[in-house]
């Protein structure tokens, strides 16, 4: 499927800001075999003093901009056309849960795809007894890593209510879980904490979700903003799989990946002065149009 993606980030500041450095993780990823970026542009208004693009540790492309002082308004526009091919996994070739630790230990790699990064606690995802207990009971009958991933994702979807007003970007996952309300970021981070407690390495995925539902299918929630879901490492043979707990589905062509990280902090769309200042109003508008390939 070929998509035209447009993201507009608007900020209005209560008072002129000093010069500031921002990093944006908003460009779609190039993923061999399942995601190809045909074209992309990022424009700023006003123009930044400096601007670079580089890949971070996880391979996510980062647009770094240094904005001039005296800023009262900022608009960042990202446009990309992306070819996405992905299908849910077919057979469960994943490891039995008790075998997972040995399989992980055999991976002698610290590259961005290595499962080791995604099993220990991370800055925003500290171990939570409440989430761990929930994960244990939700996966009681699952024997494989993939079955456990799906069972936990479904259970969370059933237990949690999507609510754009219940949490903030910095709400700890455990608090969102206790309240049983949250947005895709909360669903994803709670699920990651649960998977890790089961010994399954799990990563946070930031990306886009197509806005227009295909005919006859229900509209997917969380579509009016950037989206987040979960990537789980299910064994040496089956590797990584992606699950969207907000919509209780395996990730397929509707999901367009921006990047991976241990939690939200590694792949937050905007990092820097804009977030630190606080005295501002911001909005993200996402528009995703599918087109016929050709």
């Amino acid at each position, binding site marked *: 499927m070929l998509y035209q993606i447009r993201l507009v980030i608007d900020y209005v500041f209560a008072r002129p800001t000093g010069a500031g450095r921002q990093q944006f993780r908003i460009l779609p990823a190039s993923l061999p075999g399942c995601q190809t970026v045909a074209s992309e542009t990022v424009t700023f208004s006003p123009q930044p003093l400096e601007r670079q693009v580089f890949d971070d*540790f996880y391979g996510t492309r980062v647009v770094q901009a240094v904005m001039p002082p005296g800023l009262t308004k900022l608009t960042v526009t990202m446009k990309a056309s992306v070819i996405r091919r992905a299908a849910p996994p077919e057979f469960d070739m994943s490891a039995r849960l008790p075998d997972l630790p040995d399989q992980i230990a055999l991976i002698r790699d610290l590259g961005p795809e290595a499962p080791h990064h995604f099993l220990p606690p991370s800055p925003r995802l500290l171990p939570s007894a409440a989430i761990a207990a929930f994960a244990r009971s939700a996966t009681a009958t699952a024997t494989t890593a993939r079955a456990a991933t799906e069972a936990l994702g479904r259970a969370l979807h059933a237990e949690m209510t999507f609510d754009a007003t219940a949490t903030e970007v910095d709400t700890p996952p455990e608090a969102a879980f206790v309240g049983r309300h949250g947005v895709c970021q909360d669903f994803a981070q709670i699920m990651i904490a649960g998977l890790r407690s089961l010994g399954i390495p799990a990563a946070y995925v930031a990306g886009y979700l197509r806005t227009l539902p295909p005919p006859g299918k229900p509209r997917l929630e969380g579509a009016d903003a950037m989206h987040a879901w979960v990537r789980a490492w299910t064994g040496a043979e089956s590797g990584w799989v992606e699950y969207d707990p907000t919509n209780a589905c395996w990730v397929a062509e509707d999901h367009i990946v921006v990047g991976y990280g241990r939690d939200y902090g590694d792949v937050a769309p905007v990092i820097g002065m804009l977030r630190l200042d606080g005295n501002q109003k911001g909005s993200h508008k996402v528009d995703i149009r599918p087109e016929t390939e050709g």
Partner: protein
Amino acid sequence: MQTASSDPTLTFATGMTRDYRPPAATQDELVDARGELRPVWRGFMRHLLALSEDERTKRLARADQYLMDSGVFYRQYGTGQSVERPWPLSHIPVLIAEGEWQGLSAALIQRADLLEGLMADLYGENRLVAEGKLPAGLIAANPEWLRPMVGVRPRDGHYLHFLAFEIGRGPDGNWWVLADRAQAPSGAGYALENRVATSRAFSEVYAGMNVPRLAGFFRDFRDQLQALRHDPQARVAILTPGTMNETYYEHAYIARYLGFTLVEGEDLTVAGDRLLVRTVSGLRPVDVLWRRMDSGFADPVELNQMSRIGTPGMVSALRAQGLTMVNALGSGVLETRALMAFLPKLAQDLLGADLMMPNIATWWCGGAGERQAVLADPGRMVISDAFATGLPYDGPLQGLAASGLSHADLAAKLATEGPQLVAQEAVTLSTTPALVEGRLQPRPLSLRVFLARTAQGWQVMPGGFGRIGASPEPNAIAMQNGGNAADVWIVADKPQPVVSMVAPPTAAYRRATPGSLPSRAADNLFWLGRYVERAEGIMRLLRARNIRLAEAGEAATPLLAAMDPLFDALDTKPETGVPAGLLSALGLAISSAGHVRDRFSPDAWQALIDLNKTAARMATKVSPGDDAARALSALLRKLTGFSGLVHENMYRFLGWRFLTIGRHHERAMGMAANLAVLADAKAPEGALDLMIEVGDSVMTHRRRFSLQTSRVTVIDLLALDEMNPRSMRYQLDGMAEQLRLLPEADEYGMPSDLTRAMLRLHTDLATTRPEDLTTQAIWALRGRIAGLSDLLTGAYLR
């Protein structure tokens, strides 16, 4: 020549060494297993034991006096607020023979090379993990392994430039590494201070013992940091987390000693991949940064996003090789306790050799074999957090006995939390003599040794930082709470060259231009000037009030009431003798001064501390009236002492200018308020005399205007007279002169708003006649003076 046993001063049966009995099954630095004095100590002990008790006390006091005069302190965090503590010196140095030291140095240089190789691999190709020599999980779960730094090559090719190793002597007499310090090792500056203090106490014997000086080490490292610059115009700076850090004193001390700029994260900015420091002359490049801050805090954009003390873009600048960072960001990972389990084998891999000095036996409990080994003999193990970076005696110790775990509990804990745990053999340290209540007593010793990468490669500081336990048990627990610091003397056979920080001349003499001043330092100096002057103003008003109270009692009431608005404006309640408002102004002065301790003399700092202490003491016992008036006179004399030290000794450059501008500014503001209130036409009887007294101009007034006090004479003398150092005019003259000498901040254009406002104000005052200077006109002038502070701040101080 006498032998040790026949020398009466070395007999251990009497005097201060009578009770010197090292614990069983350990080594003692002073005496061997038979109780005989070790040869390296003979000269020192002969000297020490020959001193009378009086003489000894006097000499030790000399060392303490030095530390006190220099203001050596460290910040201690406990429950509640943190406090500055005087430096706890154990007066007896630790003596090590040169031959032994050479072996020890070679071993630590080898270890420094090992750490460099390991660092390069962890932030480079990760070959050690790929080959199974390091478990991937141990690195991936490590909070000090900073992913943004992976693949970032240091500009000069080296990740590490300054290291420290904590070592101890085991029961077999050999030295062991207890901990690796690679993040931002502290203690070298304190070691210098220990040296100066200790050598003062034992000056004769120190001079005769061939102890190598420390200065050469610092000089070579300083030269190397200078040489690492690519831009000869750029500077070397030391990055401190700030005054609340426990070792801030040392950061300021080393900056002053080496002549580098001390900066905080907010002083720096990154533009075009270069690191720049904000100065009163604009942005200036920093090419080499000696970091005394933990890596994660250095950049809130790419590292710890919660950091409020970092510099956005620091990692970007490093990625582009825009500067050299000492040590590279991410070096904290080398301190990981569990890594010690792997270092012996890694030495073979990375260096092709065995470790010359072992580290304490360590088992990372992430492996089944290791867990078996720990369970086989848990009694001699200490279990702790695998990722801990502290010294073995910092943090909770989970010895099996201490934790109360049963063998089965331990097995269960290891099975579930293994990868997060590390087991280490319990530390047994050697003992060394310390003076305890006038007697020598054996106390456990660990030693911090410093290594710097210089032009000739790794160089070991000939000496170190001795840590002396507070209680006699030769184990880690003794080191945990409290303890003292001791100097370390390497005793050589031959005389040592005298070295100093001043290198021998190699080229024709050229006078160096002083560098520019970081804006934050200028801001603190400006406010130091203001707060000191504010304190003085409060003192003068208070003294005048208390004199009236003592002399006239109830009759003085209207006059005292007339002063109330002045005290209100100064947030001071004058009814108590030494009120809280005064203490608060002094506290603010000290806080400002604390930020710029690298910029003025220890004497001046000490004078300020002394003034503050005296004021605080007086506040608790002085009663209003005559008692308070005399106390305030004493405080004024002490304050004048501080001002004199600054005035006489401070180099007349940018720092001094901002301090001076601050003082003039505050004095002008204070005088304007005093005149507006006390020289007002409606002020009560006696207010003009009071004004002259507060203005410290009684003699001058008498000389110039005989005995007649009128509003016009007072205004003339205290507002307009350019010869009177208390007058408003004098303050504006002084400010105008200093402002003219400040760097032209060209981005603000010339003449700047500040210059224009200053000139206009100065001209207006200079051309005013005393009879035209009404109360209203004085208030208006005061408002314009206040405006200068804002303009100055906008132009230079942020």
